[in-house]
C-alpha cells in the first residue's frame, strides 16, 4: 500500500538552514547536509529545501548544497524558491535534486509549467500554491498580464461569492486576483506533477493545517497534494492526511526544533491507522 509521506522542510538562505515565522524574522539553525542526514536517519520520506536566498549572486550556492546532500542522502530531494528559467531547473536536477517547486514564475507565466513539464517530465515539476482566505482585505491584490488570455479566464478570482482562497507570491508578500482552487486545476492541466499547498493564514501559527483548503484542492485535482503551513502537533499531521485528504504532509518547526522526531510522528500515525513507512 502506498504510504502517506512525511516531509521535513528546510529553509535555506545563502547555503545555511534558517527557520521562518510567517516568512519573516529568520534565525539561523544550521548546516543543510547535517540536517538532511539527521532526517534521513529518522526515516523521513523526502526532503524539501526552500531556498530563500535573496541576492542573485548567491543563488548558485544552493547547487552546492544539493550536490553535497546527494553524496550521502539517498531519498527524494525537492528544491523550491527562485526558479525562473528552464536552465535553473536543469542545473538543479543535474546537481542531484529530483523535483523542483515553482510558485512565482508560474504565476507570471503559467505556460512555463507546460514547457518545464514537457522538457523534464511532470514528475519533477511541483507547483507551490501559497493560498490565503479572501475574507481578508483583498484591496492590494493585483492581476497578471495574462488575465486577457481567454484560456485563463476561469482562474480569475470572484470575491463576490462564497468563501474562497486567493494565491500569493513572493513568500506571501504579494496577493493575486487568482482563485487558488481554479489555479490548481489549471496547473494540473498544464502539466504540474504535484502540489505543495501552503495556507498563508495558518503558516507559522502551529494551529494546524487549513483542512478545508487542503481537502478542497485534493478533491479537485488528481495529482498528489502536500499539505503545508500550520503543523504544531502530531494530531495536525493526522488531520491533514485524513480529513484534509493530503498525500503528504510538510512540517518544519515541529521537527526542526526536535519537539518530535519523524519516527515518533510515524509511530503515532500508524497507531491511528494511517499507512506510513516505518
Amino acid at each position, binding site marked *: 500500500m502506498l*504510504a502517506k509521506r512525511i516531509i521535513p522542510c528546510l529553509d535555506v538562505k545563502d547555503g545555511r538552514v534558517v527557520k521562518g515565522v510567517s516568512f519573516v524574522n529568520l534565525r539561523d539553525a544550521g548546516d543543510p547536509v547535517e540536517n538532511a542526514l539527521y532526517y534521513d536517519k529518522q526515516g523521513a520520506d523526502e526532503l524539501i529545501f526552500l531556498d530563500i536566498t535573496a541576492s542573485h549572486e548567491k543563488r548558485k550556492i544552493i547547487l552546492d548544497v544539493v550536490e553535497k546532500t546527494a553524496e550521502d542522502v539517498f531519498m527524494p530531494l525537492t528544491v523550491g524558491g527562485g526558479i525562473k528559467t528552464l536552465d535553473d531547473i536543469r542545473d538543479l536536477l543535474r546537481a542531484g535534486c529530483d523535483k523542483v517547486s515553482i510558485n512565482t514564475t508560474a504565476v507570471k507565466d503559467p505556460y512555463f509549467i507546460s514547457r518545464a513539464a514537457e522538457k523534464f*517530465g511532470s514528475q*519533477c515539476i511541483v507547483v507551490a500554491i501559497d493560498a490565503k482566505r479572501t475574507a481578508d482585505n483583498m484591496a492590494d491584490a493585483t492581476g497578471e498580464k495574462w488575465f486577457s488570455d481567454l484560456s485563463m479566464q476561469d482562474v480569475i478570482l470572484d470575491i463576490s461569492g462564497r468563501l474562497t482562497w486567493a494565491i500569493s507570491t513572493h513568500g506571501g508578500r504579494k496577493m493575486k486576483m487568482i482563485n487558488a482552487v481554479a489555479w490548481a486545476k489549471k496547473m494540473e492541466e498544464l502539466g504540474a506533477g504535484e502540489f505543495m499547498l501552503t495556507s498563508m493564514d495558518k503558516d507559522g501559527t502551529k494551529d494546524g493545517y487549513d483542512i478545508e483548503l487542503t481537502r478542497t484542492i485534493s478533491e479537485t485535482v*488528481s495529482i498528489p497534494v502536500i499539505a503545508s503551513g500550520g503543523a504544531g502537533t502530531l494530531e495536525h499531521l493526522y488531520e491533514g492526511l485524513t480529513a484534509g485528504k493530503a498525500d503528504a504532509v510538510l512540517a518544519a518547526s515541529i521537527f526542526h526544533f526536535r519537539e518530535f522526531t519523524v519516527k515518533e510522528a510515524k509511530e503515532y500515525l500508524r497507531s491511528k491507522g494511517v499507512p506510513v*513507512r516505518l
Partner: protein
Amino acid sequence: MIAIVDYGMGNLKSVEKGFKKVGVDAIVTSNPVVVDNAEAIVLPGVGAFKDCIRNLSDLSLTESVVTSINKGKPFLGICLGLQVLFSESEEFGTCKGLDIFRGKVVRFQKGLKVPHMGWNTVRIINRPPILSDIEDNSFFYFVHSFYVAPEEKDVIATTTDYGTTFASMVWKDNIFATQFHPEKSQELGLKVLAGFGKFVRKN
C-alpha cells in the same frame, strides 16, 4: 566497470553516487563505445517514453544497449529504463520500445492520484539474486504514471499494489529492471545496487 547510460534524462548523479557509496565502480557515459566495452549496463531515467527512445537513437546508443543485453551482459533498468524494454507504450499515442520483453506500458486507471508517487511495498514473487538481502514487502520509492504489463508472466519478479497489482520488477537471466528507484530508496535501495554490483562481479 559499470556504464550508467546518459541519454539526457533523469537524475543520473544519484545512481552514480549510490554505486559509489556501496563501493561499486560505475561511470556515467553517453559514448556507445564505452557502453560496448562495459562489464555491465545501467539504464536509469524518468520522463517520457518516446523521448527516451528518441534520445537513445539520436545518441546511437540503442544498438549498444540492445546488443549488450542480448550478449548476456548484466543489465539494470530503472523506472523508464524498465519501461523501454517492452514492446510498446500507450503514452502519447503508441510508441515502439526496445522489445526485449513482450508486453505493453499502460497508464494507471482514472480515479487514482497519478503519478504514483511515494513509498510503496514490493512483494517478491520470484526472488532475483540482486534482491537477496531484501525482505519481502519492503518499502521502495516510486514515481511514475505508467506501468508495465508483461505478456510472459514468468519475468515478473515483484509486484506492487496501486489501484491494480502491477509488475514492480522484472527479471530474466542477466536482465533486471525495477519500476522503483533504488537510488532514492535509502538503505534498502543501496542494498539493491550492491546486489547488482555483486552479480556483475560473479558474472
